């Protein structure tokens, strides 16, 4: 049976077009010493894998590949784990098909 090799999410994001708003991240993680379970769940739940665990055990976000779905806001904003907004007008992901 033909089967495609498993692709990394980074390769998927490569298909997309972005206009990155350098130095103006639209999502910010609240500084923490130990990440909450909600923040930790973002390592898996973010469809663009924007969230990563640093060497120091902190959750960090890099929004360059963000596809603006809102999943992390739904999980993490109410508790204050993150600050979330849409990118400035014109910036962010630019869907050709959507």
């Amino acid at each position, binding site marked *: 049976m033909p089967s495609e090799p498993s692709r990394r*999410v980074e390769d998927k994001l490569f298909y997309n077009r972005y206009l990155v708003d350098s130095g103006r991240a639209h999502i910010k993680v609240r500084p923490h010493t130990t990440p909450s379970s909600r923040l930790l769940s973002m390592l898996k739940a973010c469809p663009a894998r924007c969230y990563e665990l640093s060497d120091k055990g902190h959750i960090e976000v890099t929004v360059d590949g963000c596809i603006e779905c809102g999943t992390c806001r739904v999980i993490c904003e109410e508790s204050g784990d993150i600050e979330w907004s849409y990118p400035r007008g014109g910036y962010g992901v630019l869907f050709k098909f959507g």
Partner: protein
Amino acid sequence: MIEERFDAIVVGAGMGGNAAALIMAERGLKVLQLERGEYSGSKNVQGAILYADMLEKLIPNFREDAPLERHLVEQRFWIVDERSHTGIHYRSDDFNEEKPNRYTIIRAQFDKWFSQKVREAGATVLCETTVTELLQDSHGRVVGVRTDRDGGEIHADVVVLAEGVNGVLGTGAGLRGRPKPDKVALAVKEMHFLSRETIDARFNLKGDEGLVIEAAGTISRGMTGMGFIYSNKECISLGIGCLVADFQRTGETPYGLLEGFKRHPSVAPLIEGSEVKEYSAHLIPEGGYKAIPQLCGEGWVVVGDAAQLNNAIHREGSNLAMTSGRIAAEAICLIKSRNDPMTAKNLSLYKKLLNDSFVIKDLKKYKDMPALMHTHSQNFFLTYPQLFSKAMQDYVRVDGTPKLEKEKLMLSSFIKARSWSGLFSDALRIARAWR
């Protein structure tokens, strides 16, 4: 600073926002529509199926120039386990009609066309503009919006919130809560390009005929979810979605699920050799009737996904958006024609008209369905699909076992997995929630 004052500001240029802006502009209101994307459509993600009836009510002759992909002639529902699918397929030549009922579309392209109609109707459409907050007076009345453009305060009599599923502005202004993880699904999708001939051959289509496959079962790994495959002219939209709360709970990854669905032996041959050109993700309102927030207030109304208007059972969302946008616009135009103010009391006409439409009637019908599906996901999305698949295989495989014995084994496998009372209560729950 935009000095002008508008009759209405529409936030967002998706199906709901475009419908509202179009109707209000056509009826002579001074309308400003704000969209954060580079063009209307560039931030919008959907499967996508277009339901003709709801668009006809807005643009009767849309078939003349709208970028439609294929009209649907076949619907396949699959229950899948790891290696098989059990399907109900409905195909009818009746759907090859002069004015087809459902089409596949590509949202970014379709919305660009829709936006052109909104402009032609006389609305001002301002793209690359993110609305950052609603302007409220000292009484909490919404009087306009603030944007991320310089000095970007803009005033209007009424603001139509068509900002999409996240409802960020509504939350910011305290008009509603955030969507909850168990009330929204995260769907991820890829666009797989193939030649038109290849798609026609693989899906048994000709001309502009199109097809939909919806699959539920072990592909969602016990979570509440569904996979979909839609045929466009020269590409396949393929995706899968599950409740955000389930992703959070299980630690499954959305892209892992997508890869699993693509590798399924019933799916892989359909997309073999395709070129992927886009990967997207989007939240889908799944809370149904009980998750609908307040629909209007002093100087504002909310439509479409932003109002969580989505029929998850029938997978209808964009038509509810178009219809709620149209009805909100009609209510606003009526209030305006009477020279009445856009108060909560007057704007409740929108709620009344929406209640009388199929939008709320359908959502009410299935009001108990989300809770049922979300709390018994293991049974409905893992156990039953596995049981069905096993039963189907036993039924068709010829191996010398007497048929009566096979039937007994089948029945006992169901009872063993769910018990008599479990089977009975599952059936009863579904019947009740469906009624």
